[in-house]
Structure formats: C-alpha cells, structure tokens
C-alpha cells in the first residue's frame, strides 16, 4: 500500500508526526548563571521577570516594545528552528509554519474540522468508485512571479512531488494518470481507492503548488530546483518572503496581488523569531514583544495562563500520546504482560495532577475528536490488582524483569511520563530504567530491529484526515523499523488486512466499521500503552483575533485570517 513504498524517513529528521521538539541548547553558563541569578530570585520569590539574566527586561505594562504592539505586524516566537523553505521535501514539524505564509494547498480543511473545502481548486468531484478525482482550478490566480495558475501548473507540482519521492510523495503512489482536459481542469486517475488522496492536497504536508516557472528557471542538474527553493519561495499565498536567516528570523510582507484581496483587517507583515530558551520566549510574550509563542514546554505555557493580556487556547487537538512497548522481545512479547502494564499506569495522576486536567486518558490509538474514532473502543483503567494477576498468569508473579524507557531530548513530557511509568511499574515489580538520548540516537536505536527492545514515549499527530495515518504508521507490520514508526514492532496480520481494506473502502459507514474493529484489536493486544490526548494550549496576546485551531495544521497559522 501507499506507505509501504515511500518511507516516512523524512519525518524522522525534524520530529515528524512527532511534535517538533525544542532542541535544548547546550550552554554551560546557565549552571553558574542560574546559581547566581537564582540566589537573587530566591530572595524575592515574587520573581520579577527583569531579575533573570537571560530575558530582556520586561516592562510591567504590555506596551512600548516594537513589533508585538504594532497592529500591522504579527510577531511569532518559535522555540524550534525551521528546517527548509521547500515544502515538498520535509516532514519536520517546524518548517510548515513558514510554508503556509507563501504556499497554498489545492483544497483545505474547514475551520477546526477534518472536512475539506475549496481553496485553489474551486470545486472537485470524486467518482463513485473512488478512482477518479476531477479538480476545477480557481480562475484568475497568479503566482507571485506573475505566472498564472492553471491545471498544467498543478500537474507539474504533482510531478515534482512524485519525482522527488520525499515529503508526502508516498501518498501519491495510487495515481496512475494526470490529465488536463482543459486549462482549468485537472483529472487524477487512481489504481485503487484511497481515503487519504484528498488529504494529500489539503494538509500542511501537501503537494505544494509552486510556480512552475520558478522551478524551471532554477533547476540545476535535475534537482527540480530543490537547492534554490530551500532558500526562496514563489507561491500563490498571501505573503511574500522578505528575508530569512535560519535559526534567527523570517520576515514576510503582503503579496499585493493576492487573489483573495486585502479588504478587511489583515496583518501587513508577519515576523517569525526563533528563540531558543523557553524562559526568554515566555518573557517576550509577557512583555508584549511577540504576539504568539509556539513550541513552549507545557508547564511554561501553564505559567502564562491568566497573565494580563495573554490568552491560552484550550481546545482538543489531534495529538495522541503513547508509551511504546517492545512487542517482539522480552517479557513484553507476551500480550498479558503488555495488558498488565496497561492496567498498571496511573492515568489519572498524569492527566489530572501533572497535566492539571488539560488532558484525558486516551481511548485507543485515535484521538477522540478525530475522524474514524470508535467510542466503543475498550480502555484500560488503573488497576494494579488486575495488573498483578495478569503478570502472575504470564509467569511473572512479582514482575522481576527490567524494561528500559528511552526518550529523546527536547520533548519535555517524555521525561516526567517516564518517571511516572517507572514509579508505577515499580509497584508491579518491574524495574524501569530511564535513559535520555539525542533525537537521532533515539530514532536510530528504535528504528533498528536489532537494537530495539525498549519502552519509549511517542506522540503522533495526523498529516492526513484518516485513521490510516495513525494505525498504519504506528502499528502496521509494514511500518516497522525505518519503513514507518512502528517501533514497538507490533505485528498482527488480521489488523494489517483490516486497515488496508478500510482505507480502500469508499462507503463511509462500512469504512468506519472496519476502523472500529482495527482499534479494538490493537487495544485488545495492548500493542502500546495508550496514555492520553491533550488539549492544544497556545499562548498568545489577547489582541490577536480570529485564530481557529485545527489539529492537522498544528503549530502553523492561516496568517491571512489573523488580525488585531
């Protein structure tokens, strides 16, 4: 199937469906610095932000700072760096923030839903057998270099994506023919129905509609202008890239010819500033220097809640958090041991105490707000007695084995979750050793079947509006190792067949029945610990209007819609 051909290796680089991490900088100074600064701060527990050595001196009133208070400029602070400006070649979690200023998808998700609405394509039709997609391109749109947008340009964009074989190229595999019967009509023919085809043209990881002229002009050695597009952007979107310095800042200005026009309130400019210390980022938002702060650790966000002039969103996301378990090796190869572990985790302490009620226990592999979620999916509750009974049944009456939990730097929640897991498992007699690794070492260890034998924290958010995105990537036999993210090496042929069948089922009711069965199986097998789903908590200045959160577009914005 689709995912089998194209690996999602690209995703591993930047953080993937994995929420983009904040790579911790490694300064020495802070040990000393913190000692000194905090000796001072401790004396005055009502810490004034200005007392710390790192942050800019914040004024008590949110006025005076440049940028953030200029109603025509939107300033975003990001704790994690973008990887590339080319939206066709990466699956990282940080770059789409920039892509969405300049590039637009053919269709898009409506508000916070997984429902698709017109965008560059003013309408589309899917044949009843699910094998033909006909898009009608919106007339009168031009790229920022003056090139008109037509069906041929879209076709060229798809061809580039397929030829590069990166990003979401794997989802385009069922396409056998791309036709342009007239200048504004695009017809895709598929070899088999696929319920993620439309998603491939809607999400933030999508077929980017790049100016074909720019690609042709800047192609070098058959690279489809990859080298040039890494640092330049030519799209149809509302903003133009004015300047970009990696790890420092990106500046966008209005595209005067934007096809939706500039009536009504919009930002004149958009500035993204990369800030590598959470506390600094927080102080910038508190001081009004920036309007929105992304990629902050949850506890830092919670500290911002209720601060004057700041609102923090509290809406369901499509992020699902798991503790992966080694299904193929050691005592956890026994289903009963995995079930025991699932019964042994104190979910309520995690969601209600440590996350302060901003999260709920997961019910299976899919977020409860996501398409295809089956509310009847069984759920493991915290029940140490039952857990011990299951362990005894499996021949591990008092536990007596060791499990290693690995996590990578930058994902703040993985450490405390690992510590709770360690503490809970100790009650069952299972010794959990925690180890922190660099992101690349972590991915390398787990994606190699020879070395993978660990429990690990993992978060997934969807790139496509289909359960297949979660179920295949994390649990299918075909997604083991480097082929996907099934790093617990779960393998169940019945499950594999079900999700393939579901994905190719055109009828929604029948499809959802199959998805529900797949969810039941993977929970019954306790393929991983399904820990929690969490509300999206984004801190921003309260003058930023019209932000609508969509879990598929996480950590990005529809800049055109925002205003003060």
């Amino acid at each position, binding site marked *: 199937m689709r995912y089998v051909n194209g690996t999602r290796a690209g995703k591993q680089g930047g953080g993937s469906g994995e929420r983009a991490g904040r790579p911790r900088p490694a300064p020495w100074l802070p*040990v000393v610095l913190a000692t000194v600064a*905090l000796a001072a701060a401790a004396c005055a527990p009502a810490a004034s932000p200005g007392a710390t050595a790192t942050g800019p001196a914040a004024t008590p009133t949110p006025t005076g700072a440049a940028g953030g208070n200029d109603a025509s400029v939107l300033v975003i602070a990001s704790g994690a760096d973008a990887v590339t400006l080319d939206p066709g070649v990466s699956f990282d979690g940080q770059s789409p923030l920039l892509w969405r200023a300049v590039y637009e998808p053919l269709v898009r998700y409506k508000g916070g839903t997984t429902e698709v609405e017109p965008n560059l394509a003013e309408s589309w039709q899917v044949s009843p057998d699910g094998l033909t997609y006909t898009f009608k391109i919106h007339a009168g749109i031009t790229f920022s270099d003056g090139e008109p947008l037509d069906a041929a340009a879209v076709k060229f964009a798809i061809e580039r994506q397929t030829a590069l074989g990166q990003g979401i190229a794997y989802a385009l595999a069922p396409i056998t023919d791309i036709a342009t019967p007239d200048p504004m009509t695009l017809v895709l023919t598929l070899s088999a129905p696929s319920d993620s085809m439309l998603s491939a043209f809607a999400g933030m990881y999508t077929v980017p509609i790049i100016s074909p002229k720019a690609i042709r002009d800047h192609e070098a050695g058959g690279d489809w202008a990859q080298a040039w597009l890494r640092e330049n952007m030519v799209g149809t979107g509302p903003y133009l890239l004015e300047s970009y310095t990696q790890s420092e800042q990106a500046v966008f200005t209005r595209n005067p010819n934007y096809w939706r026009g500039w009536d009504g309130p919009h930002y004149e400019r958009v500035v993204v500033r990369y800030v590598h210390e959470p506390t600094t980022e927080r102080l910038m938002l508190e001081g009004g220097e920036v309007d929105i702060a992304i990629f902050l650790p949850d506890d830092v966000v919670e500290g911002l809640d209720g601060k004057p002039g700041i609102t923090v969103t509290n809406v369901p996301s499509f992020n699902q958090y798991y503790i992966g378990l080694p299904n193929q090796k050691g005592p956890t190869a026994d289903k009963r041991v995995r079930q025991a572990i699932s019964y042994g985790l104190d979910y309520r302490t995690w969601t209600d105490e440590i996350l302060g009620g901003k999260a709920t226990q997961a019910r299976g592999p899919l977020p409860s707000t996501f398409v295809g979620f089956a509310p009847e999916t069984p759920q493991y509750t915290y029940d140490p007695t039952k857990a011990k009974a299951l362990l005894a049944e499996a021949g591990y009456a008092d536990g007596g084995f060791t499990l290693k939990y690995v996590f990578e730097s930058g994902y703040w929640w993985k450490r405390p979750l690992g510590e709770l897991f360690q503490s809970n498992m100790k009650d069952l007699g299972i010794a959990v050793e925690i180890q922190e690794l660099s992101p690349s070492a972590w991915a390398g260890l787990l994606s190699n079947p020879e070395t993978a034998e660990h429990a690990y924290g993992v978060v997934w958010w969807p790139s496509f509006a289909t359960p297949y995105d979660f179920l295949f990537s994390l649990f299918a036999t075909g997604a083991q190792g480097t082929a996907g993210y099934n790093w617990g090496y779960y393998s169940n042929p019945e499950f594999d067949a079900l999700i393939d069948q579901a994905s190719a089922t055109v009828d929604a009711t029948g499809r959802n029945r199959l998805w529900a069965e797949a969810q039941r199986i993977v929970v019954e097998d306790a393929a991983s610990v399904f820990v929690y789903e969490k509300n999206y908590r984004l801190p921003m200045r309260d003058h930023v209007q019209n932000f609508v959160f969509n879990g598929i577009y996480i950590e990005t914005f529809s800049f055109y819609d925002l205003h003060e």
Partner: protein
Amino acid sequence: MTTPPMAQLAGPAGAEAAFRTGRRRRAVTTAGRVLANPLSAIGLVLALVLILIALAAPLLVPYDPLTIDAANRLLPPSPTHPFGTDEAGRDIFSRVLYGTRPSLLAATVILGLASVVGTVIGLVAGFRGGRVDELLMRLTDMFLAFPALVLAMGAAAALGPSFFNAMIAIAIVWWPWYARLVRGQVLHLKHELFVDAARVAGASERRIVLRHILPNCWTPIIVQMSLDVGYAILTMASLSFIGLGAQPPAPEWGAMVAVGRDYILDQPWYVAFPGMAIFVAVMAFNLLGDGLQEALSPRWRR
C-alpha cells in the same frame, strides 16, 4: 621542615626515614595551618559536612527522593517541604541532600582515575626521559590542546549518556594535568641526593620509583586533587545539565537545575536550591584546596 643534618649521612634508608617523619610531623602542622586560616577552615568544615550528608543521606531526608507525589507538585518552600517540591511532587530538600552522593562519588572516581593514570604516565615519562618522555608528553599535549569541557562532552556523547560514562569521560580529559604535575616533580626529584644514594646502594629502578620518588610526589598530587574536587563536581553537574550525565529521575544537582530552569519564573526555588548546593560544594572544596596548598607548598609558607 628541615632535614636533620645526620640523616644526610645515614645513607638512603636514613634519609628516607627522615623524609617520612618529616611528612608525618608536617601532616599535623598542616591541619593546624588549614584551620588557622578562617576561609580554609570554613572550607574544611563545609567539606566534612557534605561528606557526612552524603554518607548519612538516607537517615537525614524527610522523603524518598524518587517518590512521585503529583498532588503536591511545585509547592513553594514550607515547613513540610523546606526547599519546596518539583514538577513530580518530589521533595527538593531530600533530593538536594541525596545530590551530594553522585557529586562526591563522581569527584572521587574522576580524580581517582585521573590521578592514577596521570601519575603512572608522569612517573614513566619523567624517570625514563628521552623518547618515552617525548611520546608521552606529546600525547598529553594532545589532550590538553582541546578545551576540557568540549572534549568531555564529546567523550560522554560517544560513550552514551549515563552517569558512569560521564565520569569516565571526565577522567579522560583530566589525567593530563596530573601527568604533567608528576613528571615535573620527578624531574626535580630524580637528581636529589637520596635518589642517587639509593641508586649507588644498588636499588632497582622499580624500587627507586616506588619507594623513593613516588612518596615525595604525594603532596603536590593531594593539593591538586583538593583543588580539583570543586571543578570535578561542577563539570559533572554541567554534563548532567545537558543530559549527558545522571539520568532521570536521579537526584543530581546539575540535572535538577536543567529541568528547573523552565520553572525559573514561577517556582524559582526549584532551581535555586540545587544551584546553591553546587555553589556551596564547589566553594567548600576550593577554599579547602587553597588552604591545603598554602599550608603545604613551601613557596606560600608564611
């Protein structure tokens, strides 16, 4: 201490004995000198207190340093939790007390390994001289050419992040200082009269090095070690701070500061107390080291 003139004539054994008595007597007066200086006295007392805390930690702490109590997370300092609690509800006071253990253990292991390796290399290089000396000292220079912290980070990353590996990594960058120190001492000692006397009396090289030269290297080594304890603790905390040392949820000062810095604005006590512990430990051993150096080194003798 001056050597009694008779000892000079009594042959190698007599000279040796005189040196030893001298040393013993000196040890007593050294302690007196260290205590006489108020700063180094403070250092000595603090160092002893830290060692006591490390040994008696389980008896002193009010809470288990690892037990999670999420209902009481991020509490400010209070009579029940003198240093407050961390993001998992663990008692920071208990964790700071327990933190003396990895720090002192690391300092002991790092300096133990570094001084042994460094001393052996320094003895060989200094005593053999010539090509062996050249080879060993260029090797030492290679290690010294890198910034110590960067080299330790590289070594720790290559070995894989763990407390044990971090200690090894730091020891790897630490031994060259001892090698140089000991070599210098040997070069000076090997022309001393009692060494010549031992050689004339037919003592083997091995015996000369181990019985006559090495015992006279102890003083500078010990001074150097006492000065290094603080830096070793700081380096270990630094590696833990960037995630290459102690692994969570181990109560280690550097690791605690690393996690705590995200809480610096709302819960400043979280990072303040482990930070101050590092400060106190480093200061205590530096004061003690300075005092020892002053008391033992003839140059500084008052």
